[in-house]
Structure formats: C-alpha cells, structure tokens
C-alpha cells in the first residue's frame, strides 16, 4: 500500500518549478540510473508496479473479509506495498530529504485526519472513555490520541465497544482502526529513508539484510520489546528489507544481480520461511501475519522475484488492458481504500442483515441460503461501499497532493485523467 503520491510522483517532478525545486526534472533523469535503459513513459507510470499495487490492495480487502490465512502466502501484500513505496521514495530522494519527507507526510496525513474525524467521535459516542481505558494507562495515555494526528505510534482504540446484541460487532473499533499500524510503519520508513538510502548505497548487502536479521531477533521471541515501541520495531524489521528492495529496484541494483542467483536464493529463503512457519503456526494456522520471521522472509523472496522480473510496462498488455480503469483508480485512491476498507467491511454486516427482513426471505431455505453465502454477499456489498468512500473522501488525497480534486480518477478522460 504505497500510500501517498507514488502515482503523482512525476507530477511532482514535472511541476517542480511551481514547487520551487529548481531543476527537478532534468536532475531526476540525469541521476536515475535506469533512465538510459528505460526512459520513463509519458506520465511516468510503470503499469506493472501499478498492477502489483492494485493486486495488493484487493488482496488486503479479501483477506480482511474472509480471513483466509493462506492469502498471506499467496500474495504478501504488505511486503509488496512497502517495496513499491520504497522504490518511489528512492526516486524522490534526489531532492533534499527534508522537503521529500515533508511532502510525503503532507500527502499521508489529511486523509488520516478525515478518517479520524469520523472514527474517533463515533467511538466516543459509543462509550469509549480514553481517560479510563486501562489499555491507554489513564491520563498519561491521553497523548497517544495524538497518534491520530501524526501516527508516530499506531493510533489507540478500545478492544471492545458496545454489546453482542448491538448493531455492530463489539470488536468494530479494532476492525476500523486496526489497519492504521500501516501508517505508523510507513511514517517511520519515510523518516528513516534518507539514512537507509545512504547506507544502502554504501554497503548494499548488509543494509538490505539487516532488517531480516533484526526480525530474527525481535520477531522470534528471542528478545521481546514490550508495548507499541516493540510493535513498531517489529514491523520496521519485518518489512524493512522489502522497503530497501524498493531502493534496489529503483537504483537498478536488483537487475545487476544475475537472475538465477536472485530467484534461486529467494526461493531458498522462502523455503526457510515456510519451514519456520510450519513450526510456529499461530492461532490462524499458516497466517504469516502472526509469524514475523516467516512473513519477513516470504515477503522478501516474493518481492525479489516480482521486482526481478519487473517488465516496466508503459501500458497494460493484452487482456489486462480491460482492467486499466480499476487499476488506475486503485492507485489514485490507495490511501482512501486502505484507510476505509476494514471499517466498511464491518459496516457491511448490519446492512446485509437487513436482507433477512425482506419479505421473500422469510422461509427457512432462504435464511439458510443467506447464512451459507453470507461472506459472498459481504464481498459483493463492500465494493460499492468502497466506491462510496472514494466518492466521499477520495478527493482529499488530491488536495493533500496540491492538486485539483477529482471525483473518480480512473484515468478515463475528463478531469479524472491520470495524465494530470
């Protein structure tokens, strides 16, 4: 989930004059080691990376909806999204680091603020009292609420709110605010990127593999760091190598490794990850989200293979072309989709429950049919809801990026064109 601005990256460089960053475009081209081999397409979008990002987003939604642990093996979305974001970060860092970081945060935060402006009052209204929440630690914990403004830590939320008989499942705050850890991780990666990139360009291999090694320490129970700090370090370690792989991809370093070495050794690493997972299965079995070391190694391997074969499409080939619109939309609204999807899944349930009241649903057969196909209907319903969220809140992403707001930016003509 490459949150902000990757798709708008070229816009930043081409409009660098307006943004008072002299020489942005020429400098980018001149220092981009890949520039001579593959000139960036008009609009600057590598549609292969766009496809990966869209796939990752869909996978996240499906996973949160059905809870199938094996999806984390099928496609390690988080690793892929951090790698894509890392690649774009490396591209931006041709410019002075402070302005890049500022730019990233400016694009990330407003959508979060809007999300928080909806969620936090709802939680308070539903009876959450942050002052008396033992998880927050009373009054001293109140500053944690600031994480809703700048997520230096994952924003807090109550585990349970309401009752079983309520409209929503009592775990709804967890569902809605749980995915926000990603923003915290993203923020720290962005902040650390100048140093990471500097280190990577000097000592590539140790820098690339250090997060994996760190995962082996903090993600295996060898060393346990308590609290949110521990979580932050763990996430940083688990996905750090993927982020740095993004650097490697951008710098062309990945392509300089012979393919057979890259693919074979990632396959070995992935095998190690699976082996580790087999012996450390979590509450949901093979769900890698519960097994940090397996998640780190498996994601790393998959990302290496995906980026090693990275074909650099200027447009989607053949049969994929019909998906051009949705893919463009998903990329332009990645933050919105990610922020809102899980809350919407939760919201889909009471909506869908209304179906039981329909006149033709009053027979046992109809009810049991609905029972059995419930996840499918949730899945069907959640996409229109996401579309609604895009229409309602998506334009904030444009504002955050200093762009005129668009309602439905799927790249098809009008103001929603991706050429903007």
């Amino acid at each position, binding site marked *: 989930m490459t949150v902000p601005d990757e798709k708008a990256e070229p816009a930043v460089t081409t409009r660098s004059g307006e943004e008072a960053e002299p020489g942005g475009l020429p400098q980018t081209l001149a220092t981009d080691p890949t520039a001579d081999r593959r000139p960036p397409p008009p609009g600057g979008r590598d549609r292969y990376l766009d496809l990966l990002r869209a796939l990752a987003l869909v996978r996240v939604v499906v996973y949160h909806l059905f809870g199938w642990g094996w999806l984390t093996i099928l496609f390690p979305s988080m690793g892929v999204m951090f790698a894509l974001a890392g690649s774009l970060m490396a591209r931006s860092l041709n410019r002075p680091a402070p302005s890049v970081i500022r730019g990233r945060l400016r694009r990330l935060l407003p959508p979060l603020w809007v999300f928080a402006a909806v969620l936090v009052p709802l939680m308070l209204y539903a009876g959450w009292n942050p002052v008396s929440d033992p998880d927050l630690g009373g009054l001293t914990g109140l500053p944690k609420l600031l994480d809703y403004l700048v997520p230096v830590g994952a924003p807090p939320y109550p585990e349970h709110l309401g009752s079983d008989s309520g409209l929503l499942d009592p775990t709804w705050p967890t569902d809605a605010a749980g995915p926000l850890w990603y923003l915290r991780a993203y923020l720290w990666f962005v902040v650390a990127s100048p140093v990471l990139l500097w280190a990577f360009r000097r000592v590539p291999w140790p820098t690339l593999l250090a997060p994996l090694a760190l995962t082996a320490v903090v993600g295996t129970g060898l060393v346990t760091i308590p609290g949110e700090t521990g979580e932050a370090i763990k996430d940083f370690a688990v996905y750090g190598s993927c982020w740095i792989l993004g650097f490697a991809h951008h710098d062309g370093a990945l392509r300089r490794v*012979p*393919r*057979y*070495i890259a*693919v*074979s*050794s990632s*396959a*070995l690493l992935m*095998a190690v990850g699976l082996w580790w997972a*087999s012996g450390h299965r979590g509450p949901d079995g093979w769900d890698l989200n519960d097994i940090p070391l397996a998640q780190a190694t498996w994601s790393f391997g998959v990302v290496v293979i995906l980026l090693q074969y990275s074909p650099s499409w200027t447009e989607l080939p053949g049969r994929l072309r019909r998906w051009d619109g949705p893919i463009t939309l998903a990329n332009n609204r990645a933050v919105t989709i990610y922020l809102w999807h899980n809350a919407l899944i939760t919201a889909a349930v009471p909506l869908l429950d209304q179906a039981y009241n329909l006149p033709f649903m009053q027979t046992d057969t109809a009810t049991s049919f609905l029972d059995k196909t419930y996840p499918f209907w949730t899945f069907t319903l959640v996409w229109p809801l996401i579309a609604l969220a895009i229409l309602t809140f998506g334009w904030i992403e444009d504002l955050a990026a200093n762009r005129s707001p668009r309602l439905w930016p799927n790249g098809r003509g009008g103001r929603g064109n991706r050429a903007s």
Partner: protein
Amino acid sequence: MGPRNRRTTGTATGPARPSRSSGSSPSSRSLRMSGPAPRSAARRRRLPLRLLLPTLLLAALMAMLMLRGYVHSEILADHRIRPEATTDEVPQKILDGGPVIDTRDGHETGLRVPDHRLVLTFDDGPDPTWTPKVLDVLERHHAHAVFFVTGTMTSRYPALVRRMVAEGHEVGLHTFNHPDLSYQSRSRIDWELSQNQLAITGAAGVRTSLFRPPYSSFADAMDDRSWPVTRYIGSRGYITVVNDTDSEDWQKPGAGEIVRRATPKGGKGAIVLMHDSGGDRHQTVEALDRFIPELQARGYRFDNLTEALGAPSALTPVTGPDLWQGKAWIFLVQASDDITGTLAICLAVVGGLVIARFALMLLLSGAHSRRVRRKDFRWGPPVTEPVSVLVPAYNEAKCIEATVRSLAASKHPVEIVVVDDGSADGTADIVEALNLPGVRVVRQRNAGKPAALNRGIAHASYDLIVMMDGDTVFEPSTVRELVQPFGDPGVGAVAGNAKVGNRDSLIGAWQHIEYVMGFNLDRRMYDVLRCMPTIPGAVGAFRRSALEEAGGMSHDTLAEDTDITMALHRAGWRVVYAENARAWTEAPESVQQLWSQRYRWSYGTMQAIWKHRGALLDRGPSGRFGRVGLPLVSLFMVVAPLLAPLIDVFLLYGVVFGPTRRTVLAWLGVLAIQAVCAAYAFRLDKERMTHLISLPLQQILYRQLMYVVLLQSWITALTGGRLRWQKLRRTGVVEAPGGPVRRERAAVVSGDGGGVDRAPDRSAVT
C-alpha cells in the same frame, strides 16, 4: 587454399552426393521437415491436447491417492476428544437407563439386556490380523457378537465384514473415520453415517440400524455435548448402543484382568465393550477364549444384540442401486489400494535405478577422467591434418558472424563450409560479406538439416569433418581438441563438450547444470561403456569413411545426430568424448522454445532407438551395441524418466497427508545426492559452483517440464501423431567462449527446420 576459397554461390539444385539414407517410410515422411511454416491456428488448437492426456493421467493418479489417503484416515482425520461436560440437559431416565438408547420417533428410552445374556461388542475393526482370530474364538464357542466397524476399515477389509454377517454376528456403525461427533456439524455427522453405511453395504450387502459413537462409554456418561448428537442420530433412525462393562482391553492389562472387568455382577445381563482393532489384541483373544466358556458354564448365553433383546434383526438386506453403489465404492477403494501398492513398488524400483545410475556415473566418469588425465595418455599420433568444418545454417543472421569468426580464429587448419538451408534472413549474404579466407558458402533450397549436412559433406575437401550449429561458437582450440581422438584408427566419431552461454537467466542456469552433468557424467560414462547415444549437433567430428559406411545423415528421425551415432556404433566404430573441445551454444530462453526443442529430442531419440532395434539380434559390434548400449539408453532416457513423475506425486502426497517431515527429509536426501553429482561434474569441467544454487528449484520446476515433454513424446509415439516444431528464437547473446553476454533482446523470425542443436544425453528427468 586456392580454389577452396572460391565461394559457391547460386542455388544448387540437388545434392552433389546424394544422401544414402534409406528411403523414408511413409510414416516417417510425414515427419519430414518442410519449409518454414507460419505459426498456424491449427498448431495453437492442438496445444491443449498435448497437455490433456498427461493432465488426465496425473489427475487420475491424484484422485486415487486422495481416495487412499481418505480411507487410511490421513485426510479429514480429527483426533480431538471432548472433555466431559455437564449433564443438566440429559434426561434422568437415560442416565439411569440401559445401554441401548432408542430415541427414534421422539422416544427416549434406555433398554437393558435381560439377565444371563451377554452381548460382546467389538469396536474399531475390522482388523486384518486380530478380527479373524476373534471370529475364530467366537465360532469355536458358538457365540454371537456385535462388531461396530468403521467405514475406513470396512472399505479396506470388506471380506471380514462379509464373514461377520455370514457367521450370525451383527455389525453396527462406528462412523467412517472415528471423530468425536460432538465436535462435528450435522452434515458431517450425516456424511459419517452414510459413508459408513455405504461401506457396509458394499462389503456385506446389508444395512444396519445399530450405532455406537466413538469415544463412548456408559449410558450415565452421556453429557450435554454428546446427548444432542445421540438424539440427532436417533432421529436418523439409528439405535445408539453404549455398554455396561468396559474391558479396557486397549490398556493391555492382561487376559485375567480383562475377564474380571468384563464380567457383570450377580448374573445380570450386560453389553461388554472390547476392541478387535487398533493395536496388538492378543490379550483380547486370549481373554475371550477363557471368558466365554467360563460364563457359558454359569448359564450365560452369548447372543448378538437383537437376539438378546428378542427383537427383529438390526440388519436388512440391500438390493438395487444402493447395493451397486456400495459395491462400486468397495471396488474403487480396493483398486486404489492395489494400484498405490504397485506404484510404491515402482517408486522403489525407480529410486533404486536413479541411485544406481548416479553411483555408476560417478564411478565411470571418475575412471574416464583419471584415464584421460594421465600424463602418458594419448589417443595415437597427434592429428595435424586439415579439417572441414560444416556449418548448416537456417535463419541464423543473428549468430552466424560470431560462429564463423570463431572458427576462423581456430588454431587448427580448417576449411569452413557454411551450408545455407534456404534462409530468408540473408544468413548466407552475411557470411559472404565477411570475406574471410577459407570460408565457403553453399546455398540450397530449404530441405532440412540432414540434407544440408549431406550437401556439406559432399563439398568438404578433407577426410575429417567437424559439424556444428550456426548458433554455436568455438574456442580457438576446439577443433584441434575435437579431432585428436582420430589418432586412434578405431575411432569413427567424437563428441565435444557443449556449454550453455546464456546461463544467467533462471532457465539458462538450469540448462547449464543439465549440460554440465550431461557432458561430464553421462557422456563420460557412455564413453567408457562404449555406447554413446548421441554426438551433439553443436559440436561433433566424424571420419568421412565412417560417415559413408553409415550412409550419411538421414531424414528418418527427428534426431539425425542420434541416428547417425547409433549407425556408427553398429558399423563397429568407436565413438568417444573429447571433454576439452568446448563449444558455446545458446540455450532456449523461453519455456515454449525449450519445450519444442526437448520434444524433438526425446521423440527423435525414441525414433532412433526404434529404427536401430534390429541391432538387438545382430552379431559382432552391432549386436554388442544392440544388447548393451540400446537397453541402457532406453532404460535411462526413455523408460526411467516415465516413472519419474511418481516421485513428485508421492512427494506431494507425503507432504500433504504425512508423514511430512520424513517425506521432506527423503526429498532433501535425494537432492543432496544430486548436488554431490552436480558438484563433481562442475569440478571436472572447472566450472564455478555458483550456478548450483538453482539446483533445488530445478528439481521442483524444470524436471517436471522435462517429463511432461517425455510423456507427450510417448503419446505421440504411441498414437503416431505428427510433429512439428518451432525453431529456437535466437537472441544472439552468445559471444566468444565464455565471453560477456549482451543483454539485448531481439525477436527473430521463427519457423520450422534447421538449428537442431543437440546437447546433453542426460535427461533431466531422473
């Protein structure tokens, strides 16, 4: 070189020296190479068919293994047991009542067995070892009993269930694979019952109305978890039978103790729980042999349940479709058991073969390497006479310049004859434009590689003839090294060492490993055994007299290189391997290309073996080759690889259904053997070991591709299907020996014919 420098231009109209290959048979004529054919829609449409048969075969095999895993309780097995729960919801009359619980039609009654009646019940069977012994004891004492059989065991040993029913015992359901039903959904319970019933019907032709839940004991042990299940099962029309006395024979407390526990007090009737399966049951059998006569002496009768209760039999005969369904089920399970057993034996044979082959290869290639490395080793007097090098080329514009230049740099005196087989991309013009001394171009209308080679032979001036491909690059010393074995007058042909140039891609690295092993292990072994099956088209040398004796190149097979090599063997010539004659070739870079190439090789090899099958009965050197070489080649290249998929199928089965750890370890063991062999081959060839890192992946991706190709060749061979192929898409990345590999990609015209680049004898499949 005078006149030999003259370039032959213009289109020759017929071979100056006609090929003496025997006339094509009608069947092989259809396989003849024709002019370049565009990728036709027809070819596309045939694509699924070539996958269909192997896929069906594999699917059938997997289905069979699934069935086997299913009746061996390796799938769907659920070993959880519910701890005791409260009993609030169980009616008191059931807790206090008898062990025969009838909840049909809204009843809730617990019946007891009358005094002086004993009903022996045996759970979990039938067992192939202990059930017959139990039945023997019962028969000896004229006792009847009830056997609660599981569906899995019934499916596997139907004859025992048949015997139970025939000898007057009753059988009851004990579920299909023995889960704790209180954990299961209703549909699973229904399935457990019906599948169990199906197996009993298939085995003995009856239905039963008796049921005993797994992990059950006495009526008063019913609790809030098991009671709803019992009631539900009653609503399905079954009587649940628990027990009065539990022998706990599974603890093996000794026969005396079993008798003590089983005996009811004060002459009361009882249902006794025993087991005839699930372990060593000799104590149970021993106890029965004492228990029955003892209690019979005290006035007890041993009946089956309905006899004891004076009720109509619980078994009803089944006829019609239900019966046939049951019989079909039993038949399928038996068949899958038998076939799996056979396959396991095959697997052992294949495994043995593979390991024996590796051992033989290591041994013989070691011997070969020691022999040729000896200081005083020489083939004969040094060969210094000039050599004709034939380069058949079809649309090789990308590569031909590098090829010809590498030859021109040769340290051995050579004459270079490029035979252009009707190229459409100006291959011949490129060569002519080079204007190199000692290089001649012969053009012909597209007629296929064998014809081009025969024409080249006709144009060659010297008696030693080297053949190579238009996409291959020689080292300066290659030709010299290649012809040295001709110092031995018995040597008719020499195979060189083809190396993969484009080895940095994954598929290239896999082929590199394959080539290095094929040339340094297989070919050395074949050299020592004197049955080298193929001289690679990419690098080989022939004595003109040997070629003439064998009748030149032939169109009979798709693998003219294998064909001619076998013909030379039959003519009594030695065919040897020159490991220092290295030629750099470009391996296919796409799966599609690789598929076409390998399909041609493996089918061509089959054709060649078939063509030379007569050697089996010949006398002299031909007979020796027919009785030693041909069987070896057939075994290692055609038969053994066919069984190789079994390894993967069983690997998958083992990983999924267990024992996972042992399966993976066994696989890693085989991988280690492979790695050792590969490392040895790399060492012999002084190659860097880094490429071995792709060996594990090769074993789980590449090998499978190879045997699907082979399987398809078999199907083609058996159905006599036609075969066409695509020429390898050249990218022109192979340069000077081991030189840098350019990263350009260029699409090249593809079409039929030419460019048969032949490499490792070794089939990747084993």
